């Protein structure tokens, strides 16, 4: 019997190995979460000076505020568009990449590139590319679509620009996972499809998608979380929640209240609401998809 086959059975050793991770999680995740929960019941001045217990007042203020409720609705709409958009485009791109035989590597790099770009850089670059008066794209969009581009002023345009940017930014990530899933499809199935003469798109919908379903479920959850939280940098750099709150998603409103308006208590309450909302959505997504995903 070699040394390699000894079972590791030291409980103490196991705890020791877990310790660094546990410390990090407690210090940077659980402790702040508990503090956030606590602060959500307080009215605060500056950063936690003069705190005063107010019970559920922060929550009732939020839930009766038209601005906040609009922001919640906007966030859900935004998440739906971004999740569907980035999955649909990602799937189309991944499938084309799977099918293509020449220049696969070049296409792959092109597809993944936006994901490799830090969000802050992407936001700044897009701001100037699509800027209403000095943007390079603006002229062509105006000429081709006949709309006057002014997303600093027109609400739906601001929303559209941020949504498109968020989708574009996420496609690469989805493509990586989808391509990996596609590459796992057994060659025998491909051959069977070929023998039966099944057309390309039908093959995607009927054969590949069901086989990819565990990956797709994972991506739905990740993309939802991304849409709720990850769009912050784009909004902060491109629209600052405007025009007139058209891109004021929950995460941005939260940031504003906490860091610009110094209202930590109210922001903590928003953080709790956001957490409950995303946790609830994720739970529902996993439950629903259990019925359709084939593991």
């Amino acid at each position, binding site marked *: 019997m070699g040394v390699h086959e000894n079972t590791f059975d030291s409980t103490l050793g196991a705890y020791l190995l877990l310790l660094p991770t546990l410390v990090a999680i407690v210090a940077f995740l659980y402790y702040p979460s508990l503090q956030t929960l606590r602060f959500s019941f307080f*009215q605060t001045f500056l*950063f936690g000076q003069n705190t005063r217990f107010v019970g559920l007042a922060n929550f009732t203020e939020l839930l009766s505020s038209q601005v906040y409720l609009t922001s919640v609705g906007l966030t859900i709409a935004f998440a739906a568009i971004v999740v569907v958009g980035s999955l649909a485009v990602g799937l189309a791109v991944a499938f084309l990449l799977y099918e293509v035989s020449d220049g696969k590597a070049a296409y792959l790099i092109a597809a993944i590139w936006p994901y490799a770009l830090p969000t802050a850089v992407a936001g700044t670059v897009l701001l100037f590319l699509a800027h209403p*008066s*000095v943007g390079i794209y603006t002229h062509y969009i105006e000429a081709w679509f006949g709309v006057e581009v002014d997303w600093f002023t027109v609400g739906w345009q601001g929303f559209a620009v941020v949504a498109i940017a968020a989708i574009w930014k996420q496609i690469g990530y989805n493509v990586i996972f989808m391509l990996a899933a596609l590459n796992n499809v057994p060659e025998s199935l491909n051959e069977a499809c070929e023998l039966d003469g099944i057309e390309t798109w039908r093959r995607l919908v009927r054969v590949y998608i069901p086989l990819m379903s565990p990956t797709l479920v994972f991506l739905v959850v990740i993309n939802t979380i991304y849409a709720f939280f990850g769009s912050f940098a784009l909004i902060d750099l491109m629209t600052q929640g405007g*025009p007139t709150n058209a891109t004021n998603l929950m995460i941005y409103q939260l940031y504003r209240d906490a*860091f610009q*308006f110094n209202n930590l208590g109210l922001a903590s309450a928003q953080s709790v609401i956001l957490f409950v909302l995303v946790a609830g959505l994720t739970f529902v997504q996993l439950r629903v998809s259990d019925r359709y995903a084939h593991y």
Partner: protein
Amino acid sequence: MGGNLGETVDALAADFNEQSDGVTVETSYKGSYDETLNAVTSAIGAGEAPELAQIVDLGSRLAIDSGAFEPMEEALPSDRIDWSDFQDPVIDYYSFDDTVYSMPFNSSNPIFYYNKDMFEAAGLDPESPPETLAEVREASETIVDQGIAEQGITFANVSWFPEQWFAEANVPLVNKDNGRTTDPTEANLDTDTADRIFTWWADMHADGLYNHAGVGNWGAAQQAFLNGQTAMWISSTAGVASATAGAEENDFELGTGYYPTAGETRTGVVIGGASLWMTRGLSDEKKQGLTDFLLWLAEAEQQAFWHQNTGYFPISDSAVEYLDEDGWFDENPNFQTAFDQLQETEQTVATQGWQAGPASEVRTIIQDGYVSMINSDVTVDEKLASMKSEADDALESYIQSKGN
């Protein structure tokens, strides 16, 4: 401060460290004004305030209320500093209850820029820029009608500009003496002055005469002006240096003028920028070192260096004399405009500038309010009324959260 400004700050700190015995100043960049204020307030919360913090103009009330800073006039030994040598508008801005609370550092004004070549092409007098908003509109109409530029004027959508129109009209933005005596409870957004300002601004956009560069988007406004999309531009005097360079690059002659007023009254402008705040409870040794640094910074030579490299005002009379003797203003007439405008400003509560704890919230309300005037059917009057009630709520809730 970032970019060129940040480098100048570092150069100043390095110069100081070189000439001083034993005292070393370290600088640290915390991002924009808002981010810096946020970094400082959170550091105070954690009991780790920096010895010296640069705080944005409108963060003054919040800084005082935090209780973390010692009034500068009490901190600096009176025999070593002559407060009367400082420019009045600058020192007034940072005074509360007749006490100077912080050391003015970077101070600027809004100023009017125009493209002289375009004025000439449109048959306008390139030597007499518009002085009122009505004249800006007339000039814009002439320029746009003749197809010389796409729009007449551009400027970033920042609350700072309408605030300046209030000051010129000698109307305080908030009650309680513009928030100078105590926490204000009401914003004067239901006044005729407010109506006149916002009606002009909204109409300019509706009639295609104003290029809305976006909320807080100083850079885009500058770019639109420099690349000839508009013939006029409003910005900070802190941009004089880069605007001069930009005009040269784009090959047109740059003109500057006083900030256009909302009506006939020209009371003056409010300074903007930031100041330096000293933390309470420092050791004697640290305080001594900081005092040396601040006094050195206020000397004419350093002030002149700062002004020439950035466009921010020299804050003392002696620094102005120093620059004048050097022929600086003769060679740089655009700086002269900025400077005359500051010196001609009458000292009133309106030109002293407003203060309020939730200032950045109120500014956001004003900026967003303008956007909804131009992108929805709401009338200027209706919107001003709702902006006022939002602003009043913010002012009220600040007083409440401060407690006692």
